[in-house]
């Protein structure tokens, strides 16, 4: 029954799985860079991080 259910959905090919994994890693890296960037700027600005000139 479980096996039948599995086959009803979309079955990704090897190429699709591989490219999806690569895209996921790239998104994770980009988010990591964003976190590091915000952290670094917070350290650099210190309390002034809340002062944003218009």
């Amino acid at each position, binding site marked *: 029954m479980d096996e039948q259910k599995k086959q009803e959905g*979309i079955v*990704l*090919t090897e*190429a*699709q799985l591989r*490219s*999806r994994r*690569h*895209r996921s*890693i*790239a998104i994770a890296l980009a988010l990591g860079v*964003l976190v590091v*960037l*915000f952290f*670094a*700027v917070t350290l*650099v600005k210190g309390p002034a991080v809340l002062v*944003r*000139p*218009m």
Partner: protein
Amino acid sequence: MLVVDHNAIELGPHVSEAEVGDYIALLKPRVMSLVVFTALVGLMIAPVYVHPVLAFTAILCIAVGAGASGALNMALEGDIDAKMTRTANRPIPRGRITSGEAMAFGMTLAFFSVMTLGILVNWIAGGMLAFTIFFYVVIYTMWLKRRTAQNIVIGGAAGALPPVVAWAAATGSLSVEPWLLFSIIFFWTPPHFWALALFRSDDYARAGVPMLPVVAGPDATRLQILLYTVLLVAVALAPWPLGYFDAAYGVTSLMLGAGMLWLAIDVYRLRAGKAAARATRRLFAFSILYLFALFAVLLAEVVFRAIAPWVW
């Protein structure tokens, strides 16, 4: 005759096989590199100290914003790109990425680049970056490109804004110097792109893009190239006598300007055969060197002043 509509027989849900490289291609890396360079110059000539982390953040946001503009441009121009030899290998015409995926990618990057620049650096820079993306995508891509032969003249403003955004990131304000850099890129754009359009006019005609050589013919384009080159050389030289940039810049601008003018006259004079094609390609190639060298000398002045102030 049996006609098969390949879109009609694709019944299942779309599953992407796009690789990371396809998404990087959407960012137009070569355009991005020029944007990064001109923005770096705008940031470096600003008369204030900018912490390296903030400088890096500003340049990164401007680069990502430029990439977002490129992705949104490709999302909207898949039909044109498919018809042109120069662009037929882009991810959308090759079927690697759909227009919808490119649109989502571009919008996400545009949002994050503007918000990050605004929050971490300042909102003048963030606002200017948002305006730059808007101008390139809405004013140039959606409105002007398919409607008027003046598309790249007006649209060129988007490509000229990065040094202004970078200056705003450094100083939190705007003044004359970044607008001088803006003017140089703005007046550089028409001779550069019309030179390209002259030897790619068949491509543009096939795609239905009303570039000047397609609409007004090659001779009118050659005249416009010459006129805009005269304007460019004057605008690029003006900051020296006006006292904004130093003699090193002035002499470089004078020599490079003479080269640009010489090649533009060649393009105007040689109108047929291989000599004409060669003159056009030479002007196109030299125009890239011209802009790069003008901005490089400004960067060199700043670096020299920092490491060897007694020389300057």
